[in-house]
């Protein structure tokens, strides 16, 4: 049966090569664009190293605070280390909570006496290395003892090591970071800027710099963000209620100066955090999903209408064949099924073409597709194979192929199967 569908579909394609080419081009284009949209969303949400635990993350990137004397006003931005520690590192439900600098800062590094180059610096604690999974090619990350002591040690990426030392086994070597001497503790593989939380080119303990001294609002706001790693996604509700409890306790403490923390429903999961833009507005996940749905509908329905009309026209020529089949006992449902299945063969072929095109485009046109706001000092947004070619990518592509096929051949198939046998044998559709 399946072979028959294949043969018939193939024969049809060869008979009317131009129209078939048009049909395949249209389908491939539709799948191509749909997959681009899917990939742009996946890149924000699907797990890949070093953020392989994305589905267990809860982020607190920014914080908001108000004061009784400010009326409706609020101050929004990253928080101080004190706030992060008191409100989030004291939690007992999650597996780990890491505190790190809110943004990467372009910082000069060089060897003594040589010209400096700018790299993206991130300042973290020791828990950072447990929450994110980096691949170390030399050395190891700084541990709790080094962090507590505020030792000037650093983890650098492969590219930075090569640029500085012309080799990568540089554990223990010294260099100048911002005119201060640091020692290399470990070297990791380059990190794509698409890993928006963990990205950096050099990581140092924030206790080794003066970053934590930059605070405002009475040491409540500062330059830090934090990420919570839950043991399981199912713990999210428990974590949120513990966060809420801790917030009440801490607000009671800081309330003596009139301050009050407003969480705006933080912490956010990965999907919500990815669309969070400003610190003073809670992101609307439902609206983002609705928008994506509308885009998918447009991208599916318009080609479906095109393909429908072409399928309908093609079926006209097979009217007598349909009549013969019906005369020999084929049911309407069987007929519909056959037409849809034949179409499916073509759709899947075109879908595969579209998927390959979209993957190629994502690799080659990554700077167009994934516009990044950070300066690309040494690495542009590198797109890894495991980011794009996820099992879910194929699943989505397959789903959209099915939908497109159903939409485009459903109505013509139904219409064709309803022709009365006599009319069909006579070559008339109605």
């Amino acid at each position, binding site marked *: 049966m399946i072979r028959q569908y294949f043969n018939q579909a193939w024969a049809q394609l060869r008979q009317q090569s131009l129209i078939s080419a048009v049909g395949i081009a249209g389908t491939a284009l539709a799948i191509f664009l749909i997959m681009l949209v899917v990939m742009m969303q996946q890149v924000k949400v699907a797990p890949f190293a070093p953020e392989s635990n994305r589905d267990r993350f809860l982020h607190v990137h920014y914080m908001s605070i108000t004061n009784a004397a400010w009326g409706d006003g609020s101050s929004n931005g990253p928080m101080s280390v004190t706030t992060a520690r008191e409100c989030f590192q004291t939690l007992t439900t999650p597996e780990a909570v890491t505190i790190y600098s809110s943004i990467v800062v372009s910082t000069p590094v060089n060897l003594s006496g040589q010209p400096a180059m700018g790299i993206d610096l991130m300042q973290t604690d020791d828990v950072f290395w447990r929450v994110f999974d980096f691949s170390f090619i030399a050395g190891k990350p700084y541990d709790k003892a080094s962090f507590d002591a505020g030792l000037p040690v650093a983890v650098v990426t492969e590219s930075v090591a090569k640029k500085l030392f012309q080799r990568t086994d540089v554990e223990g070597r010294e260099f100048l970071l*911002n005119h201060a001497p640091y020692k290399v503790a470990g070297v990791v593989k380059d990190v794509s800027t698409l890993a928006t939380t963990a990205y950096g080119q050099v990581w140092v303990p924030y206790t080794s710099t003066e970053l934590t001294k930059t605070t405002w609002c009475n040491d409540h706001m500062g330059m830090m963000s934090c990420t919570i790693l839950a043991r399981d996604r199912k713990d999210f509700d428990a974590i949120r209620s513990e966060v809420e409890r801790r917030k009440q306790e801490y607000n009671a403490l800081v309330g003596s100066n009139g301050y009050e923390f407003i969480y705006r429903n933080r912490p956010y999961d990965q999907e919500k955090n990815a669309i969070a833009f400003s610190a003073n507005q809670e992101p609307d996940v439902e609206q983002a999903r609705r928008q994506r749905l509308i885009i998918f509908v447009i991208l599916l329905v318009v080609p479906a*209408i095109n393909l429908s009309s072409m399928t309908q026209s*093609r079926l006209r020529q097979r009217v007598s064949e349909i009549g013969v089949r019906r005369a020999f006992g084929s049911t309407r449902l069987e007929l519909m099924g056959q037409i849809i299945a034949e179409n499916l063969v073509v759709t899947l072929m075109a879908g595969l073409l579209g998927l390959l095109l979209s993957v190629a485009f994502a690799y080659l046109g990554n700077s167009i597709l994934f516009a990044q706001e950070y300066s690309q000092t040494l690495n542009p947004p590198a797109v890894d194979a495991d980011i794009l070619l996820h099992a879910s990518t194929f699943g989505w592509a397959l789903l959209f192929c099915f939908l497109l096929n159903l939409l485009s051949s459903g109505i013509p198939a139904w219409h064709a199967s309803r022709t009365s046998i006599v009319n069909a044998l006579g070559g008339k559709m109605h």
Partner: protein
Amino acid sequence: MKFAIHNLRMIRARLRQNGWVLAEFFLVFIVMWFLCDSLGCMKYTFYRPLGVDIEHVYLLELVKGGESRDSSLTDADKYWSVLEKLQQEPTVEVAALCYWSLPMSGSNSYNSLSAQDSVWVNARLINTTGGYIDVFRMKDDARCPFSEMPADRNHVMLSQATVNRFKRRIPEFSQDTPLGHPYDTTLTVTQSGTIEAFRTYRYGDDAPCYFYRLDENSVKKRYADENANIVFRVKAAADGDDYRARFVREIAARLDTDNLFVADAVPYTQQQHQFEVMNGDTDKVNSQAIVVLFLLVNVFLGLIGTFWFRTRRRRSEIALRLAMGSTKSQVFRLLTGEGLLLLTIVALPAMLVCYNIGMAELTIGRTELISTWPVKWGVLRFLLGSLGAWLLIALMVMMGIFFPARQAMRIEPAEALHEE
């Protein structure tokens, strides 16, 4: 005219067969109108003059490194020292020091001042030294320039957009109207002048701002430990592609104060680009343009497909026409005319739907999709959008029907009728 009516009759006779084409045109027209409207508004806003000039402007990137050698210096002392040294550089025309007050930046602060005690207007606070206006080539009144305004919190300069917002609610609002302080009701804030309209964001509207001037005293007293931004304008003759590298190599070392080091001088165009990317507008324009292209390609492919089959089915009809005296170009025009007429027929109900979508923006508020608010909704905007959509689709119609129509022209009447 006769031709058009003839065509319309043919279309009516075969309305069922044209069903798919009509449905496709209807849907595509609506989406295209929306995209043409959105892209048109965004591009129009983008190309409108800004009122600020960021050419030859650089942002100084400063980093604090290592221990401070002179603990009596506050951050403000160090920043002020960098500013003074910078202003003495021969290649620098003018420099300014400001606190979270840069255009095209995500770091900002807002507050409200009131007029007549009840009308509050919220606007962005610009806390900066006098050189800011000249760095960005904004226009203030020559009779009361910003650089001579008293440097305290009781004197403010409004931007034109803020003045407009006040005037909308208080028609008699003028430069002499005293303003109320946000927190202390006993204080009045005097207006010392106005800054002419400017936009700080290429995709945005005129910026409402309150300008407060800072001098050495106020900087060192009020912002002792805060992080400041320093921007400067380079003399046009001295600027060039290599200025940034030269600056870091030669000038930066002269500016370093204590543990405050100059890391880079970033051209302001880069800051502008980063801000637009961060805001998502670059992405929006790109993705909308891609969807427009996608829809057009679909229309093109769909029409090739439909008219291909149509030409083949109507071979005998076309042959008959040719035999009865039609010229080949008339046959060509018959088919293309049919496509365009189908489009125009559908355009009218589709425009009705589009108009309702546009009106919905006013009633249900700004949605993410239709929020092209820098351009006011109006009939002209609606008509231009419709015209744009019609033209683009018509272009695709012509290209799509071209090949099947050429095939039709080549039909030999005798052969076709013979087959019949």
